[in-house]
């Protein structure tokens, strides 16, 4: 299974069209392996992006350098996935018994 340990989801707030364009530039940087959950659309519309652990520093520095606001929406994706799996397994165990 794909491992998402350390992956974070950032919620980015682009305040103007120029910032939206800057975030859009990130989409083209394939080496960062970003996964846009909500793509850049227009100022004020939240942008959510899953960032693999090795790219976190680069992305945060990029955003901060351009004065683009963000917050961490999901601290560790794998933690949520583990909870999801545990819940499903617990349900199946109960159903079986």
């Amino acid at each position: 299974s794909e491992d998402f340990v350390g992956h974070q989801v950032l919620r980015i707030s682009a305040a103007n069209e120029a910032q939206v364009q800057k975030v859009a530039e990130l989409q083209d940087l394939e080496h960062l392996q970003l996964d846009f959950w909500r793509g850049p659309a227009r100022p004020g519309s939240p942008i959510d992006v899953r960032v693999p652990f090795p790219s976190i520093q680069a992305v945060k520095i990029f955003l901060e350098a351009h004065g683009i606001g963000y917050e961490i929406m999901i601290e560790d994706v794998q933690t949520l996935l583990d909870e999801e799996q545990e819940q499903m397994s617990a349900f199946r165990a109960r159903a079986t018994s």
Partner: protein
Amino acid sequence: TDTFNYATYHTLEEIYDFIDQLVAEHPQLVSKIQIGNTYEGRPIYVLKFSTGGNNRPAIWIDTGIHSREWVTQASGVWFAKKITEDYGQDPTVTSILDNLDVFLEIVTNPDGFAFTHSQNRMWRKTRSRTSGSFCIGVDPNRNWDAGFGKAGASSNPCSDTYHGKTANSEVEVKSIVDFVKNHGNIKAFISIHSYSQLLLYPYGYTSEPAPDQKELHQVAKSAVTALASLYGTKYQYGSIIDTIYQASGSTVDWTYNQGIKYSFTFELRDTGRYGFLLPASQIIPTAQETWLALLTIMEHTQTHPY
């Protein structure tokens, strides 16, 4: 299906078992149609809810064309059960089904869905191979023959919005296209995604307003009002291109261009905390509120024949 747990996420096999059970319990109301096989050979099923008649006007609902949007498939399961519970009990549902058929495709991208359960929870696309590329899969919501390949989709097979080599290259898309064309009497088409709390209508590939924009806007407004009445969940609504961004080759642009006036696409819930990882505890509230919006669209379709 009374003991099925609607408040947890299920695998493809569990959902297919649920479908068989529902059909067995309501043979006069529900039937299962296989509209094709996926790239990896899995059957693609559609539930038909019908109280009789021959080729009645129909409403299409699909959930889960993007496999990682698990709350949509889970909501689809809940809708199926809800229809069987409410027919003969709820006057709106009864009236709709006495006049129209409803088709519900719960798992629109079975290969992708199976992959999210076994290998990569974040998988969005189909699982087809592209010759000449190591990357797998096509975005099935960019693969329709409506502005195919224009801005708002990627030509890069490694992208999550890769449009595919040609329109309808994905069997999961082509199966629906063939079904819709063969049926010829579908009056509403609702494609359900998650997340960002939106109700959208055509177009996505062009900023030209749809000829029926005024009416679609009013219907969308009524639908999101009904949705919000249950838990206060706020939705934005409008055309795809005006509300989110340009997207070419999308499902409801194609259906609208086929003459299906009431073409809508949903983006279901999230509070901005979980994205595709919506906790299972939110499945039923999500499905319940969405159902109210679906009813609004279905009722409008019934009372505004064209």
